[in-house]
């Protein structure tokens, strides 16, 4: 009897010790972030890898406490950030499974990820069901918050509407004359949506202009001989393209010797990331968008200077859209975690507390002010910029003639769908 009681006492002691150690461990808590982006496949080199490159140096800077204010607290509110990286390749089927593994097996605190719109559409309802705070950092489709509403899902980048609305506005602002225009876009949702947005926006901004050719080469086609012939024959004033990555580079390299860029004004709605790899081979006079005020077109703020230096020191190349979009997700997440910790007395925030902190939140990212105003406070709007490729004094091809549009000039108001807003003639747009 005595023996048992003694043992019970030891057990209690042990339990107490465990509690004490548990408590000590809690003071040095870690914050696990699941990061999902393309590390293999077509979107890896253009988006996934540079995005994670950016995320890596940024998380390191956060953990060391070397970021400038208001990001100067170590980690997330003192908690060390531990990233768990997953490859986005394999389609929505694999991604739903890996998302569940991140949440249910790895017990990550939040998930930040997804470049592909299909993956975002598939993940959002799963995140909602598992009640896990999730940030979609890149994907473009407006459908996510236009077709559904979520408690736990946020997108910290503006959806694709602004890419083409901003482009049409840029053309007008720069006095580009357009009476005929053509489009070459990939034959999948992104290409079709981009073209639909652009033609709708052109109808508002250039009501007289007509479409002379619509081309939809397959995604990843790589060979554009026939399309270039068709475009040369149609002789439009303007050629619109939302091609990205290898497709975009292939079109440029194949179109250059055939004079495509001399004959028509070419606009790439999201083509900035092809500039560093092509370097001096990049044609001059192309109008380029980046899906935000990124890279060459980023605002000249202290934060952006710090971020650009951080990235360039590590990789010796200018950060373009992908790392910026990752940075705006991670900066927003950091401030949201710290805001939630202020509200709950310094504990590690739950998904509910994070969602409450992120809803309608706004923060200064390297690319300017991100405001979670749309989709019931879950969808960001942000400023966007466009420029024209030209040689600088050092002979490098960079972007000049930059025009920056405020977020409310190129994004629909909170209660309107993107395409309806364009077709209604941009009601409520604030462009000054």
């Amino acid at each position, binding site marked *: 009897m005595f023996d048992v009681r003694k043992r019970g006492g030891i057990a209690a002691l042990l339990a107490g010790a465990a509690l004490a150690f548990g408590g000590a461990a809690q003071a040095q808590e870690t914050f696990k972030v699941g990061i999902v982006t393309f590390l293999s496949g077509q979107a890896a080199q253009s988006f996934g890898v540079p995005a994670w490159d950016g995320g890596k140096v940024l998380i390191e800077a956060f953990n060391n406490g070397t970021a400038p204010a208001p990001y100067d607290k170590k980690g997330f509110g003192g908690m060390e950030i531990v990233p768990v990286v997953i490859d986005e390749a394999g*389609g929505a089927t694999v991604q739903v*499974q890996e998302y569940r593994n991140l949440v249910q097996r790895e017990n990550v605190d939040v998930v930040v990820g997804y470049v592909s719109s299909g993956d975002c559409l598939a993940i959002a309802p799963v995140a909602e069901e598992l009640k896990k705070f999730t940030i979609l950092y890149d994907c473009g489709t407006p459908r996510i918050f236009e077709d559904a509403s979520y408690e736990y899902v946020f997108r910290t980048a503006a959806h694709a509407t602004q890419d083409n609305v901003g482009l049409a506005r840029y053309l007008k602002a720069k006095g580009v004359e357009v009476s005929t225009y053509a489009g070459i876009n990939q034959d999948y949702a992104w290409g079709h949506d981009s073209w639909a947005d652009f033609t709708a926006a052109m109808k508002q901004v250039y009501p007289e202009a007509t479409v002379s050719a619509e081309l939809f080469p397959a995604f990843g086609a790589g060979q554009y001989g026939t399309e270039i012939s068709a475009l040369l024959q149609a002789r439009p004033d303007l050629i619109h393209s939302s091609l990205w990555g290898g497709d975009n580079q292939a079109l440029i390299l194949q179109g250059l010797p055939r004079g495509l860029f001399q004959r028509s004004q070419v606009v790439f709605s999201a083509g900035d990331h092809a500039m560093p790899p092509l370097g001096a081979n990049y044609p001059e006079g192309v109008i380029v968008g980046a899906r935000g005020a990124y890279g060459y077109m980023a605002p000249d703020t202290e934060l952006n200077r710090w971020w650009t230096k951080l990235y360039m020191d590590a990789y010796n190349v200018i950060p373009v859209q992908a790392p910026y979009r990752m940075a705006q997700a991670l900066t927003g997440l950091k401030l949201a975690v710290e805001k939630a910790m202020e509200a709950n007395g310094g504990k590690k925030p739950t998904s509910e507390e994070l969602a409450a902190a992120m809803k309608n939140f706004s923060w200064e990212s390297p690319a300017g002010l991100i405001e979670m105003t749309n989709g019931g406070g879950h969808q960001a709007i942000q400023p966007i910029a466009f420029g024209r490729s030209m040689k600088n004094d050092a002979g490098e091809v960079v972007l000049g003639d930059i025009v920056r549009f405020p977020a409310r000039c190129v994004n629909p108001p909170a209660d309107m769908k993107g395409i309806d807003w364009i077709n209604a003639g941009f009601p409520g747009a604030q462009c000054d």
Partner: protein
Amino acid sequence: MIRVFGLAALGAVLAIVAGALAPAWLVFTMTKAIAFGLVALGIVGLMRGGLVSFGQGLYYCAGAYVSGLLAARFGVSEAALLLLIGAVTGAAAAALVSPLIARYRGIFFAMLTMALSMVLYGVLAKATPIGGTDGFNVPRPSFGGWTPGPESADLALYVVAVVFAAVAAALCRLYYDSGPGLVALAARENELRVEYLGASVFTVTQRNFILAGGLAGLGGALNGMALGHVDPFFSYWTTSGEVVFIAILGGYASAVAVFGAALIVELVRSFSGQYFPESWQLFLGIFLLLVIIFLPRGFGSLWAKRATGAKGAGE
């Protein structure tokens, strides 16, 4: 027959107990493995006749889309009903294709099935009203009128999946061991001789192909429900290729091995993706190579071979 169903029931009970004890992420992975296993089971049926289809994605996708659309647009939510609809859709699509496809053999058969699945991919990718390449979301199913909460939904679907898989595996076993089923094995050895013996290789192939289509449709409907999302990628050739791999790993000797093979592939892929995010394909590839080198007849040969050996010794 009683023995086969008895074994299937026992297996199902064990699988359900394992599911109840397993962590939530594993339950989901097991459900997905069952779905892929069902598709692979159909390929195993074809493999017994010496054919490999690289286009089961077509029937898999057809089952997923038809049951998914019925659930998303027309409010049909009964899990068992949606699974049956998926199976019927897959079988019907295969029946439509089978008179053409059953004439071909070898690489022509493989390429033609793959081409047809890519046709469906192309059509769905352009079908903007149902989401184009992005696909659409499928609501959670109900079970006999009961809609479980998020905590028990995964397990409920898993239980239904296990029951369907057990029945499918048992029926396949019975069919494989029956006269018409065994003709496939003979056709694999020598088609000409089978024809001279009075059996039609064409009919056998057609029958196996429709069976495979039905199983693929069943798997597609199941995966659509489990994932909550379907997209044209279901019909892409890489999806079909993945299932062929599972079928090869399982081997055609056993009807149960494919489910194990599917689960192992899923787990190896998931964990190598977790620990080697930048080079997981390398690890998956090495694993698959090792299995092919050391178990050329698949996991199923581990026990199926021994069983035949014992039988041979007894006779």
